[in-house]
């Protein structure tokens, strides 16, 4: 996006949510969820550093536009229903 200098505030004040940063592009490993095995413990949601997991009826819905693929959800899931798959693999 380009703006004229007249539109830019004198001090740099942020006015746009960071949702313009598609951090999902950084990902090397992608989380894949088996929702049938999910026990709705919500640990994946609780421990996601990027708040990229939304709960739908207690089950995770991972926003792959922003998920950086750290794998904390897969490591913490007690039901082992999240696995990390290398991005090129598919």
């Amino acid at each position: 996006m380009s703006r004229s200098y007249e539109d830019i505030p004198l001090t740099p004040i942020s006015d746009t949510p960071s949702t313009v940063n598609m951090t999902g592009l950084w990902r090397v490993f992608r989380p894949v969820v088996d929702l049938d095995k999910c026990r709705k413990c919500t640990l994946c949601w609780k421990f996601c550093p990027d708040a990229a997991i939304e709960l739908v009826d207690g089950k995770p819905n991972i926003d792959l536009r922003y998920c950086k693929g750290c794998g904390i959800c897969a490591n913490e899931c007690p039901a082992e229903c999240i696995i990390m798959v290398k991005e090129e693999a598919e």
Partner: protein
Amino acid sequence: MSRVTIPEVEHAYPGSTGCPGCGANLVMRYLLKGLGERTILTIPACCWAVMPGYWPSHCLKVPMVYCAFEATGASLSGIRAALDMKGVEDVTVVGFAGDGGTVDIGLQALSGAAERGTDAIYVMYDNEAYMNTGIQRSGATPWGAWTTTTPVGSSRDYKREPKKDIMSIMEAHGIPYAATVSVAHPEDFVKKAKKAKDARGLKFIHALSPCPPGWKMNPMKTIEIARLAVDTNVFPLYEVENGRLRITKKGKGLPIEDYLSTQGRFRHLTEEEVKRMQESVDSSLKALEEREAREG
């Protein structure tokens, strides 16, 4: 039915520029869940100065002011004074700084704010080195750790000084509330954030924040390692309320090897050096427990 144990409301957008698996991102997320949206942050140079994203984007839903590296304590006092002049009482002012900006560079401004009794919360997220500039050692780097300024190599120049005890330094100021928190125990974290919000005066929160690139660890192990830090008593969770100490989460007492072996920065340590660390952890835990028994 879901079993959510911390507030569901989010005060951060996704899309921050923190590394994958960053502990500091979780510190901010849990802190804001505890404090709510009526919060103003002031952040000096640290990882979190970079993590909100590049202009004009910003990943927090609360206002935030950048300040100079050494000035967090002065900055939060200034914001509080301005709010007091305007008669705004329901806003929590938070200084949010890294370990270098707290125990080294920002210590005098923080000490001043504590001495003045500014009504604010100071949160130190401790990743145990200057991480965003390239893993240089800080006063909060533990004994024995590798950093780029304490390289190991054949001369084994790992850090020879123990970690600065910032909790005792802050307590010596007679502040009303000081607590240690961990990203592996968010319920305890949110509870302590709320407690800090309700106390009057300067409150101090020390959060251990695992750093995957700096600690040379797998990003998926962030929570696991933070949990091990508590269970091996390397980072005991306690609070000091008006001078009375209470341990809030007992560790399992696992051997310190379990914690050290997860991180590349401790890989060079010999058995004898690990034993030395174990002894130091045991003696500081004993001192904490004795104090709790005396005051509790």
